[in-house]
């Protein structure tokens, strides 16, 4: 029997002389056939398409590298896993096994951390929305409560009086770090004196125990220097507390926000080559602290709530080609089964997308659409890809942060998430949704039960 050759779409491409590729290289669409030695084809056959895949090994490696970057420069360092970045229990517990505390921003996330077994005193409770019930629970559990506004401060003082507990608190400080925009909606402002005012209120009333100072200056930050400015400003507040009250805070929490290796939309160069490394952020923060005027008997613990930089490149989203289409203006478009409903970060990033099978060197500029019947469902508005056929598989890279929390149940159901452990064993850590799951939450009034059509 004659074996037929692999089929590829016919393509004709105009050769532009003296017009090199924007990046001068063509690595973007090198096929990626395996994740941690496991064939992508096998993963999709077994668990379906689309499919989120997370590498435990990569998470641990990222964590250890970040920890080392800070610990070689500063004596006392503590990471707290930012739950909102990815709060699948398996992911959280990898970080907790490595020694991370939990950083949460809602009652829901708080309860999740407690159920995971995190001691209350190792939970940092951030955010503008903490109900009285949430706060009472956090106070009883000795959690670290980061106050966002004065209403919360007053409520905590009342709770302290009525429960005879002394809540452990910090304030969140916002400030000008030379970057735009300033996130001034969270916490108390440094420059206009709000932060100092809040600290004085806490120190004067004496019902709360001021244990720390917190800031989170933004997310996907590309400037290590902004962190140096922020660290210096927190050290200044610590120094003033020391002078005025002889009070030593126990920690300085620099929040999260380090850029991951992704490429922001509209960026000219790939993020892998241009974004600062964890070492550069560590250097900026620790030198600012060490060189500040703040000279306590014990150096304060340096807390980091790093999210995306620790997990983005530890997860991939696998998918399949649904169809190819020629647009009215002649451009090629490819529809895949990955939409913005599960790849929320497609709004931010020009995600790297690679084919999961070998191809010839022919490529085409393509618009990559998701499967939703919605105009906004664009995964890449311009990407160079080999000639994909219906049924071919693709890999979207660096999807570990925010997608598995900000995804939406919209138009279709959410897929499985699997974890490849350190021995390359695959575990389902979140099952795919079913129609039954969705209907469980709904209720139909009796008078709407029937109709004739």
């Amino acid at each position: 029997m004659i074996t037929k050759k692999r089929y590829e779409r016919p393509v004709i491409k105009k050769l532009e002389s003296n017009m090199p590729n924007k990046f001068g290289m063509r690595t973007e669409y090198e096929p990626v056939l395996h994740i941690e030695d496991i064939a992508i084809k096998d993963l999709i056959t077994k668990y379906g398409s689309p499919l989120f895949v997370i590498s435990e090994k990569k998470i641990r490696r990222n964590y250890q590298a970040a920890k080392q970057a800070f610990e070689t420069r500063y004596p006392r360092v503590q990471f707290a896993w930012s739950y909102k970045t990815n709060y699948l229990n398996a992911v959280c517990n990898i970080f907790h096994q490595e020694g991370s505390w939990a950083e949460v921003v809602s009652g829901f996330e708080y309860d999740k951390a407690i159920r995971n077994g995190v001691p209350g005193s190792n939970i940092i409770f951030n955010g503008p929305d903490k109900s009285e019930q949430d706060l009472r629970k956090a106070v009883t559990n000795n959690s670290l409560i980061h106050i966002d506004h004065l209403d919360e401060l007053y409520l905590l003082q009342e709770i302290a009086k009525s429960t005879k507990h002394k809540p452990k608190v910090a304030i969140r400080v916002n400030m000008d770090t030379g970057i735009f925009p300033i996130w001034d909606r969270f916490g108390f402002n440094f420059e206009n004196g709000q932060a100092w005012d809040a600290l004085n209120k806490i120190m004067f009333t004496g019902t709360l125990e001021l244990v720390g100072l917190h800031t989170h200056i933004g997310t996907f930050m590309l400037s290590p220097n902004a962190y140096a400015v922020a660290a210096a400003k927190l050290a200044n507040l610590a120094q003033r507390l020391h002078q005025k009250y002889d009070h030593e805070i126990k920690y300085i929490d620099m929040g999260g926000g380090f850029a991951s290796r992704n490429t922001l939309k509209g960026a000219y160069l790939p993020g892998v080559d241009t974004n600062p490394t964890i070492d550069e952020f560590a250097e900026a923060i620790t030198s600012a602290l060490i060189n500040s005027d703040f000279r306590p008997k014990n150096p304060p613990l340096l807390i980091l709530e790093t999210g995306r930089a620790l997990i983005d490149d530890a997860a991939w989203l696998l998918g399949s080609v649904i169809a190819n289409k020629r647009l009215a203006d002649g451009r090629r478009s490819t529809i895949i089964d990955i939409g913005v409903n599960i790849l929320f970060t497609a709004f931010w990033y020009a995600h790297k997308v690679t084919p999961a099978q070998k191809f010839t060197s022919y490529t085409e500029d393509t618009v990559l659409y998701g499967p939703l019947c919605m105009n906004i469902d664009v995964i890449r508005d311009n990407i160079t890809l080999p000639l994909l056929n219906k049924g071919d598989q693709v890999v979207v890279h660096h999807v570990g942060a925010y997608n598995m929390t900000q995804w939406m149940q919209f138009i279709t159901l959410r897929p499985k998430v699997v974890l490849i452990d350190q021995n390359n064993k695959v575990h389902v850590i979140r099952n795919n949704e079913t129609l039954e799951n969705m209907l469980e939450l709904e209720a139909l009034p009796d008078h709407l039960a029937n109709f004739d059509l």
Partner: protein
Amino acid sequence: MNLKNNIAISDSGFVFNPSSGESFSVNQIGLEMLNMLRQKFTTEDIVTHIEKGFQAERPTIERDLNDFIDMMNQYHLMQDEDE
């Protein structure tokens, strides 16, 4: 619609249009289709030929061939029968 007579096609898939000075590259399937178009095979024949040699369903090949001809038309490589 036919392929313009003066279009030069090399074995490696390099295509040159002397009237515009533009050059193009085609992949292997495209090259086979182009050569058959030049020999005035019908689209039917071309589809049958590709179907025999490659792992693809007839409707896919038909659709891709039409799309390919559309692209060549946009690049001004085709002409009407009577030109």
